[in-house]
């Protein structure tokens, strides 16, 4: 049964109800998804979401690309925080290979991930506020986001799709001038978050629109497969950075904010506090950043430097082997999860020992969260659907892959 016939048949059955088609091109969907809402007056009695409007076939494409070549595709999964996807994917392949990356590479990955987390939360909170009608906060927050993009551009050369990681480390070290600029950002961002909180946290309109909307219990949230800020807002202190530390997260000092009701307001508070905690982590990274290589010293994984390729026979052979035949991959399967801005971002990689992954699966954090949409909005008002959608932070790129 197609979506259109579902919409039509319901209209025929219940004459006094109204069908509203939200999407696929709708200003509050931020991407492409479609929801067929069944309304009685302004109350939602049913909501049937449909996704797949941005299904680009990434998993299939990955099967015909080598392990390194897949990195640019990971950028485009959650395009609000690309670097975290790079890190998550590289981490999974490193687990498959069984290698440890150098200390400095770990620290820079943490630094960049936390910057990306702030950028993602800024977009999420800012856009959620715009959808509800608070335009001012959006402009204040986006100013900070531009600063983060400037930092990315300085370090990587691209604003959005960074492709910063390589399997075994990073493709380059931080440039000169990055650390002072990042330190300046820390101060400015703190102030901007304060400003945003002054605009929103005690704002009665914001309270009215977000409190008690999208309430979910801890058990339900776990059953729906929630992860990330939405799960923490429901009162489950699950954060992979603490629970299953990777990249040395256990050595940093930070707290995990937890909500109580799981409503939109709690999700906002959790995200805001997470931004502050991320700033704390960044400060610690900047303090302890130690010099050293950013790529593993393993000719079977890392490309040799150009200078060596031109002057040494052995390096030339390694370079040729890596480019033409790819890395030597063990046969096996791994699942590796990292805490992305939206929740648990998992990569399940099956390798048959070839140059390309045999199967590459992206476990998107949004998909289980969005699947609960009907449950979240049923019985609420149509205007609340917009607030819930914003607080879920659906990124179509990773939702549909």
């Amino acid at each position: 049964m197609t979506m259109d016939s579902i919409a039509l048949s319901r209209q025929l059955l219940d004459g006094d109800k109204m069908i509203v088609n939200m999407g696929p091109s709708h200003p509050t969907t931020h991407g492409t998804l479609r929801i067929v809402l069944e309304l009685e007056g302004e109350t939602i009695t049913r909501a049937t979401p449909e996704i797949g409007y941005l299904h680009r076939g990434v998993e299939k494409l990955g099967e015909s690309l080598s392990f390194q070549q897949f990195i640019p595709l990971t950028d485009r999964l959650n395009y609000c925080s690309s670097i975290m996807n790079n890190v998550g994917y590289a981490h999974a392949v490193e687990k498959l290979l069984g290698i440890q990356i150098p200390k400095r590479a770990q620290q820079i990955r943490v630094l960049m991930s936390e910057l990306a987390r702030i950028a993602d939360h800024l977009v999420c909170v800012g856009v959620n506020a715009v959808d509800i009608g608070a335009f001012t906060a959006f402009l204040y927050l986006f100013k900070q986001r531009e600063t983060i993009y400037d930092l990315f551009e300085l370090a990587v050369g691209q604003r959005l799709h960074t492709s910063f990681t390589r399997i075994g480390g990073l493709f380059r070290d931080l440039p000169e001038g990055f650390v002072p600029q990042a330190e300046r950002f820390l101060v400015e961002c703190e102030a901007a978050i304060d400003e945003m909180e002054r605009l929103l946290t005690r704002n009665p309109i914001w309270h009215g629109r977000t409190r008690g909307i999208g309430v979910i219990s801890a058990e339900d949230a776990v059953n729906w497969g929630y992860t990330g800020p939405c799960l923490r807002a429901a009162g489950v202190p699950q954060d992979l950075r603490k629970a299953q530390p990777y990249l040395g997260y256990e050595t940093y000092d930070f707290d995990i904010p937890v909500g109580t009701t799981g409503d939109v307001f709690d999700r906002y508070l959790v995200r805001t506090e997470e931004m502050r905690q991320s700033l704390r982590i960044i400060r610690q990274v900047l303090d302890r950043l130690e010099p050293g290589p950013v790529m593993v010293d393993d000719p079977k994984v890392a490309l040799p430097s150009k200078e060596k390729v031109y002057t040494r026979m052995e390096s030339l052979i390694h370079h040729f082997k890596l480019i033409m035949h790819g890395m030597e991959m063990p046969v096996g399967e791994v699942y590796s999860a990292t805490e992305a801005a939206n929740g648990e971002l998992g990569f399940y990689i099956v390798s048959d020992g070839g140059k390309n992954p045999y199967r590459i699966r992206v476990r998107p954090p949004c998909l289980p969260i969005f699947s609960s949409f009907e449950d979240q909005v049923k019985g609420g008002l149509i205007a609340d659907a917009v607030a819930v959608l914003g607080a879920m932070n659906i990124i179509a790129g990773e939702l549909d892959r």
Partner: protein
Amino acid sequence: MSELNINDAVMTTRLDAVVNWGRKNSLWPMPFGVACCAIEFMSMMSSKYDLARFGAEAMRFSPRQSDMMLILGTITNKMAPVLRTIYAQMAEPKWVISVGVCASSGGMYRTYATLQGVDRIIPVDVYVPGCPPRPESIIYGVMKLQEKIEKESLSMRKDHIGRFYESLARQEAIQTEKGLTGQQTIREMLMDAADRGAGTIF
């Protein structure tokens, strides 16, 4: 009281020039934001880059109130019929900027799911390369469109748009006749066009 000199009060020009001058400086964009490029579009709209400098800040999310469609991101085969409908809903005159490689050519996604360029299903005026293009690039694309509008002939537009509506009628006919979904219809039309050696269905 001195006599009014007609040359001071009246300026002679061509109709094309004066209409196009008006059109190019009041473009109302409709962001068809589907993927990553939409994030850069947000940057372009907000404080630092500020599209208002080009008279194009009046964003309208309804196709009926806008005349410049910005396609921001990958258009998949599933989205293709939606895009055609939305383009058809826009009032004449209308222009399309295809932002980013995915919209322009399918980009890195040469897969079963992705439409290999929106110009196969709707007419495109300006292509902006990049993945994603920087806000400056998108603004440059808008400027290029303004240049194009300036030189446009009003009578030529009719022809250009007429072909699209013809293909839309054909699409509807096939869809009802064979009972297919929009996606399948567009696929059939694309295959048909490929047999004729054409790259587009309009």
